[in-house]
């Protein structure tokens, strides 16, 4: 039978469900054989009931699959030989718990127990972009100490641990998470500027490792004229991804014509309020003519 072949081919990966189908098929073929022999009314009745039961089971099975729900072998009647073993339940629970442990990385802080404590993993992101992860291996002794970590040297880890590690481990992690995410976000913005908007830059983007001091010269066009501006962005608050100090100056020239002065002031404001690469996206979008309505 064609169907039997299909069943056998996929048997490997389809496990219990196809085994169930095979059993159903065996039962049906048994009834097929009985069809050749003359039957008395009672036996025929019984067979019809059996077939109806099988058909109803299969209908339910198809319905469940079509609804996208995993077929539950709990629907099986007790006198059929398939049972859910306790093993399977435990295995599924284990799957579930393992998956949840993995999912913790989406909350920003996840971890794995170690023989001496816990290895905490801090994930970072900037808006929707998932970025680097950092780990901190904590040894749960008195006092708590950091065995090793992958936190960059310019992040004030010692300061943060000194303040919180012993008294409030949770707070230690939250604060470290803030610092790392902010650093990651600033780095992302600087990288995007360098890679995606090189056409706007005059000379290299100057940046420090903490990415909280950026200095660059860029050119924008207004009414056919191109004008270079020097920008200096300082992020004093290491837990933010927007600068605290922005200065945009004209390169060399003492006094700017009024339209350019307006532009300069607008740009300063933009750098304060929007992520760096998004400011340049808006510059690019406006193309030739820069619009003050960018501010609203």
């Amino acid at each position, binding site marked *: 039978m064609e169907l039997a072949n299909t069943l056998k081919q996929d048997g490997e990966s389809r496990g219990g469900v196809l085994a169930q*189908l095979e059993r159903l098929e065996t039962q049906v073929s048994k009834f097929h054989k009985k069809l050749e022999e003359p039957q008395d009314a009672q036996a025929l009745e019984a067979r019809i009931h059996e077939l109806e039961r099988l058909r109803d089971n*299969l209908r339910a099975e198809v319905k469940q*699959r079509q609804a996208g729900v995993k077929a539950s072998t709990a629907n099986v009647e007790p006198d059929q030989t398939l049972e859910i073993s306790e093993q399977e339940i435990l295995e599924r629970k284990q799957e579930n718990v393992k998956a*949840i442990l993995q999912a913790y990385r989406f909350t920003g802080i996840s971890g794995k127990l170690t023989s001496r404590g816990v290895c905490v993993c801090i994930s970072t992101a900037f808006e929707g*972009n998932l970025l680097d992860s950092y780990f901190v291996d904590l040894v749960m002794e008195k006092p708590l100490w950091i065995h090793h970590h992958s936190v960059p040297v310019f992040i004030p880890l010692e300061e943060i641990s000194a303040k919180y590690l012993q008294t409030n481990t*949770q707070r230690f992690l939250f604060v470290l998470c803030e610092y790392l995410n902010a650093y990651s976000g600033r780095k992302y913005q600087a990288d995007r500027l360098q890679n995606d908007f090189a056409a706007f830059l005059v000379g290299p983007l100057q940046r420090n490792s903490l990415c909280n001091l950026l200095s660059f010269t860029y050119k924008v066009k207004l009414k056919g004229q191109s004008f270079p501006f020097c920008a200096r962005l300082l992020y004093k608050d290491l837990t933010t991804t927007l600068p605290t100090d922005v200065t945009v100056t004209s390169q060399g020239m003492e006094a700017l014509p009024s339209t350019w002065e307006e532009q300069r002031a607008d740009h300063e404001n933009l750098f304060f309020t929007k992520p760096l690469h998004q400011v340049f996206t808006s510059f690019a979008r406006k193309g030739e003519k820069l619009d003050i309505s960018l501010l609203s």
Partner: protein
Amino acid sequence: MDSQRAKARALEAEITALRRACIETQAPEDDDSQVRKSFQETYQSDSEEWRSSKDLRSHLESLESELQFLSRLTGISIRNYCKKTEDLTSTEMAEKSIKKVLQRHRLSGNCHMITFQLEFQILEIQDKESLSSVITDLSIIMEPNEYSELSEFVSRAEEKRDLLMFFRSLRCFVEWCDYRKHTFKHFKEKYPEAVQLSEGASSSYMGIRNPSQPGFELVIVWRIQIDEQGKVLPKLDLLTKVPLQALELDKNRVIETAPLSFRTLLGVLGIEATLESLIKSLCTEESS
């Protein structure tokens, strides 16, 4: 008899058709086979541990306690999680060794008293040099809804698809809510007559009055705000409720300037000390 046989034949035909339908609805890449695949992989690596139900049970227990520990450490408790993966790599991409995968995640759990349900999609593109992972869709449902400050924050997080900021700010917000509740409760217990929590300890209002001088009332409004960057900041204000006569007698305009002085005091003494001094100053003549 004939009709019965016909009925039996019809049933058999139906059964055959249903079996065929069963096999067809099992798509090549469905959850079931995914689960079994990862299941088999784990089996191979941990085959020692699966010898008996007992081993399995103790392993499960240790995993569950790890989960509890993580939930205490991070402040977030995840109760349910499932993931579906869709391979979007076209043959063109495969030739250039580019792999494109769309993941659909569903996560639910709680952070103290706030429960959340999240659905998000992550697009992963892997080429020879790098891997980029971007959240392409995020939807958040939160309960309870009474924290009005949260709904604006939630729409902002959804718009920016900033999943991690959502959790960072949520933790912070919940911590502040807890602190506010404890502070209000503490003062209510210390000065039961003077302090009024008309909307309960979980609300943003605390009233102070001197029972021997009805008509005078101070209301502390303590809001917890989340700014554009996801930073959580407490914002406290003082409202005064004073009878007209008293206002007229107030030559030094103490009552008028009270809200401003309140802010200054907050900056100097901090929240608890400021509230304490306010209560004490209003109730200096409190009869025992």
